[in-house]
């Protein structure tokens, strides 16, 4: 056996087998053993589309644009080609969008919202939508410009924001002083001290008021306090009033007698003397009553009942 020939034969055989395997793999990868699936896309403009533009589904390339041309009505017809294994992602409710990113080439995006929908037939025609970011850029730039102008205006020298920041700086500077936040709010340590002083005084005043309230309480509501005395006085007053009422009733009766008497004046004058004495007695009693009440109750009135 020729060793040299054996080695070369081994080398050649191995190389040929590897080459054959690689070519078979390549043919499989390129879909040589599969049916190709065709799809037409109708678009208004072929801007950015060229043969070789990928058709992607969920970010994965499943097909490519093969040719594109005009139809009789001036519309664009884009022919795309898919491997048989990728055709299952194309459904009747799929949407086809032409994406033109700022960086990178254009691609046709397939969105299939419902994968249970019926599959697209071969050689179907679908509509191609366009989403062109570059067309939105000028509008975006205009808006950003306006915003920047506003920001510039707000942050200009001697603008509101600068003034506010300066004020905040002053206030926070004061806040670090002896009287802290109070000084920051009031503006100077003197004013802050006045506030703390008045607070101190208020505290003292409240202490005094506390003591006073306790004393008043004692004076008013304790055993033999003012309240109890008043209650007793009122009971006496009621008694006196009853007394006065009975006296006045007597006087009433006397007055009735008097009318009767004056009707019979001629019946004798000694009765008038007796009557006079009785009225005087009643008036005196009433006077005494009023005096008594006046003693108990400080009425600022003359203690007198005028007799007609």
């Amino acid at each position, binding site marked *: 056996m020729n060793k*040299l020939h054996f*080695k*070369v034969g081994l*080398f*050649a055989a191995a*190389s040929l087998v590897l080459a054959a395997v690689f070519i078979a793999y390549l043919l499989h*990868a*390129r879909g040589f053993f599969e049916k190709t699936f065709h799809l037409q896309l109708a678009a208004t403009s072929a801007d950015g589309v060229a043969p070789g533009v990928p058709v992607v589904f969920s970010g*994965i*390339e499943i097909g490519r644009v093969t040719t594109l041309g005009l139809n009789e009505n001036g519309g664009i017809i884009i022919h795309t080609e898919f491997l048989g294994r990728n055709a299952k992602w194309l459904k009747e409710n799929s949407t086809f969008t032409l994406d033109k990113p700022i960086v990178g080439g254009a691609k046709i995006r397939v969105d299939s919202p419902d994968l249970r929908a019926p599959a697209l037939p071969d050689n179907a025609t679908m509509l191609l939508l366009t989403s062109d970011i570059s067309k939105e850029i000028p509008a975006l730039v205009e808006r950003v410009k306006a915003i920047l102008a506003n920001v510039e205006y707000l942050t200009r020298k001697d603008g509101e924001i600068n003034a506010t920041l300066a004020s905040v700086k002053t206030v926070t500077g004061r806040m670090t002083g002896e009287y802290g936040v109070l000084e920051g709010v009031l503006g100077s340590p003197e004013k802050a001290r006045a506030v703390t002083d008045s607070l101190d005084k208020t505290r003292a005043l409240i202490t005094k008021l506390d003591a006073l309230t306790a004393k008043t309480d004692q004076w008013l509501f304790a055993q033999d306090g003012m309240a109890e005395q008043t209650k007793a006085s009122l009971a006496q007053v009621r008694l006196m009033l009853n007394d006065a009422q009975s006296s006045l009733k007597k006087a009433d009766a006397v007055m009735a007698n008097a009318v009767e008497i004056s009707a019979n004046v001629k019946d004798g004058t000694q009765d008038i003397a007796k009557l006079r004495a009785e009225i005087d007695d009643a008036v005196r009693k009433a006077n005494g009553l009023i005096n008594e009440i006046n003693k108990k109750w400080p009425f600022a009135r003359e203690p007198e009942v005028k007799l007609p």
Partner: protein
Amino acid sequence: MNFLAASIESLGAKVVGWFTVGYGMFAFLAQAGLLLLEPATWNRATFDVVVKQIYFTAVQILHVFLGYALVISWLIITIILSTARDFGLTEFASEMTIRVLVLELLPFLTALFVALRSGSAINTEVALMQVNNELDALAHCKVPPMQFEFLPRLIGGVVSVVTLAGLAGLLALLMGYLAIYGMNVAGFEPYTRTIAKIFDFRIMAGLIAKCALFGLAVTLIPVTAGLETPKKLFMVPVSVLRGMMRVFFAIVAIEVVSLALKYI
């Protein structure tokens, strides 16, 4: 005035020299091609020499070459992957790896490897044969040197460079898969898609043609350079020097033209 005339004359001499070399090369190539078409060429003796040439050019160095291809592939794949990750371009990393390694770098390095090892040897051998009148002796003994010495070398060179570049490329594809997806089959589907995207018919045909041209360049140029050697022993190193310079320029020119055809 004399100086100008001398410059023009030397330029003319150079141009004529280049044309002579080019003409000699293509005439030799045409002769070899014609011989290849003759049925008489395809006999057992020629075949044995071809096998021997393939053994010396490819099989003998296979383990060294594959080790070298492994290291350089691994290095370049790692660099491309980490750079792509830094710039957020991971999705393009596999395509970049395949394009740089399999399509450009590995065939070029294979050609250089074979040129430095076998090309220089062929050049020296042919130059010595020429100086020692061995070629005339062979022709006299009815052993045409074209059929038994030169044509097998050309065939061996082409076959070797194409095979070695192919093996290195397959190794690089495997390394690339392992570097990107690791030891699992999860990445098979996307990797297959990338490969399918890159290797269309044009690219495959271009790759094979480029490798064949490399193989031809690293054997044809040394043979013709050796045949040009004046019959003086001290001219042998000069012949090798010239031959290797031409090989280098030819390899670079083939690479540049292939790149231009592919991407311009």
